[in-house]
């Protein structure tokens, strides 16, 4: 369990993390979602005691991370794939990490096998590709078989096979009752992996909801309707609280009415419908809708 309370980090005049409060529960994968620069990495670093909060607290299993006697047993972290000495082999990197809390050498060999780095374990980590670096980071996170996993953008640089692998790994770890907290700026990836979402923008909490709720909150359904008597249908449906947008000749997109309401009204007026489709916003659209005011660097077109 990770508990973050009123966590704030300021760098001079800039507030990177602004009074964040949320809880990450065990047993599910929790996605930490936000545009680049939203403060996700800074928050994770504060949870792990690498950065000192300006104010507020962050605890892992009830205590600040640094106060645990076996920190790697409490939480394993992938902070960034570059947190490795480039001149040292993957094996010796893991061996040195393991030695700090007495994890045996056999477990080092084991995590190397789990992440599939067996072939290159004795090579210099500096020669690793980004994907291999991510796998090494995940190996070090798994070393002491921790109860909490904190992974910052773990799918970065992985090929499709690697992405699938880590998705299953995270879900498997959560199913074992562990707390899995994983950041991403890709909503689509989180929708497939996570069950719960903590969404941030510009350091502020935007949403702390289940994935399903998040989509509901972010945008409402629209109804696409197609009819040969489109003009009559338009007049029939228009009214307060209803938006009708012409999509193409003979087709409208309607928000503010359900598909059932549209169908009933058309039937009552004897208007034939050639299509009646409920349109769910895509996850990416829902995410962008929710964070549009909180994007750090916005293109001019998107801002309009």
């Amino acid at each position, binding site marked *: 369990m990770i508990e973050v309370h009123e966590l704030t980090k300021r760098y001079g005049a800039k507030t990177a993390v602004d009074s964040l409060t949320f809880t990450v529960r065990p047993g599910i994968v929790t996605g930490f979602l936000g545009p680049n620069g939203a403060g996700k990495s800074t928050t994770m670093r504060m949870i792990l005691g690498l950065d000192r909060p300006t104010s507020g607290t962050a605890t892992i299993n009830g205590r600040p991370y640094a106060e645990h*006697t*076996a*920190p790697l*047993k409490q939480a394993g972290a992938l902070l960034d794939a570059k947190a490795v*000495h480039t001149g*040292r082999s993957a094996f010796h990197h893991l061996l040195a*990490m393991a030695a*700090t809390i*007495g994890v045996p050498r056999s477990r080092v060999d084991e995590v190397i096998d789990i992440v599939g780095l067996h072939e290159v374990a004795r090579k210099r980590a500096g020669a690793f590709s980004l994907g291999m670096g991510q796998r090494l980071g995940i190996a070090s996170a798994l070393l002491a*078989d921790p109860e909490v996993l904190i992974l910052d953008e773990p799918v970065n640089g992985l090929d499709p096979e690697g992405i699938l692998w880590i998705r299953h790994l995270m879900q498997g770890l959560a199913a074992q009752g562990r707390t899995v907290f994983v950041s991403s700026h890709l909503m689509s990836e989180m929708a497939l992996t996570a069950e719960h979402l903590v969404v941030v923008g510009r350091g502020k909490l935007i949403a702390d909801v289940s994935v399903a709720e998040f989509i509901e909150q972010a945008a409402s359904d629209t109804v696409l309707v197609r009819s040969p008597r489109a003009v009559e249908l338009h007049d029939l449906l228009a009214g307060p609280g209803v938006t009708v947008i012409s999509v193409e000749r003979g087709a409208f997109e309607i928000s503010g009415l359900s598909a059932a309401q549209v169908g009933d009204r058309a039937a009552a007026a004897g208007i034939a419908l050639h299509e009646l489709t409920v349109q769910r916003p895509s996850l990416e659209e829902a995410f962008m809708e929710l964070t549009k005011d909180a994007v750090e660097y916005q293109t001019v077109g998107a801002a309009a």
Partner: protein
Amino acid sequence: MSTATLSPKTARHAEPVAPQKLKVTQARVIRSEWIKFWSLRSTVVTLAVAVALLVGIGLLAASMVGTGETGPGPDGPSFGPVDASLAGLTFAQLAFGTLGVLFMASEYSTGMIRSSLTAVPKRLPVLWGKIAVFTGVAFLLGLAAAAIAFTGGQAIIGDGGASWSDPGVARAVIGSAVILTGSGIIGLALGALLRSMPAAITTLFGVMFLLSGIAGLLLPSSWSDDVVQFLPSNAGNAFTAVTQSSGTLSPWAGLAVFAAYVVAVVAAGAWRLKRSDA
């Protein structure tokens, strides 16, 4: 190790490993730093260079004494057989100092520090572990190299050579190892303080090797001697000198002053490590 019972099966099924066994201790952090130290090729190369400089230059200088040439130093009498055989000390100091800087500052330049401090979030044990490993390795190797340089140098010099039982000789040889180790620790602590290899190496070389010359040039001569003898390089040299000249500290005062510099820089490095965001 006592925790070797963590079998693959228990790990995969997340059965808790007895939690009192998995725990950070200073001894384990030292072990971790030992692994880190020896698993870098740059460490081994720098150590080899340091030993080669100390032994090689010492033997070379001794061979010049043997042939009647007393080297470029104008103060012929003070450049005795012991000093000649340990003439490589300054150069070895550069190498050991660089090694100390590398050991700490490379953690910052590569990002390794974030892994290290995630494993040991109390932070200071990492610095103590590095100092312990570095002190052990540098002192033993430095002592062995100084002993070889001295013994070999005296063999080359032959009749005019010094022996281990001569006054000040044991202090000069052991002191060389102490100064080499101390210089490396200063480099290591500068790495922790400045978090940058170029900055730490520049500062180390400036303070250890240039400051004394610059002070001699810039300060009024009436009190430059009083100041210069307290500089780290001069204080260190006072400890290893076989014969005392005027304007230098006594050997033990020299050691005390040198040790004070080491402690001060280590304290500053520890403060930065503990206080600043990693």
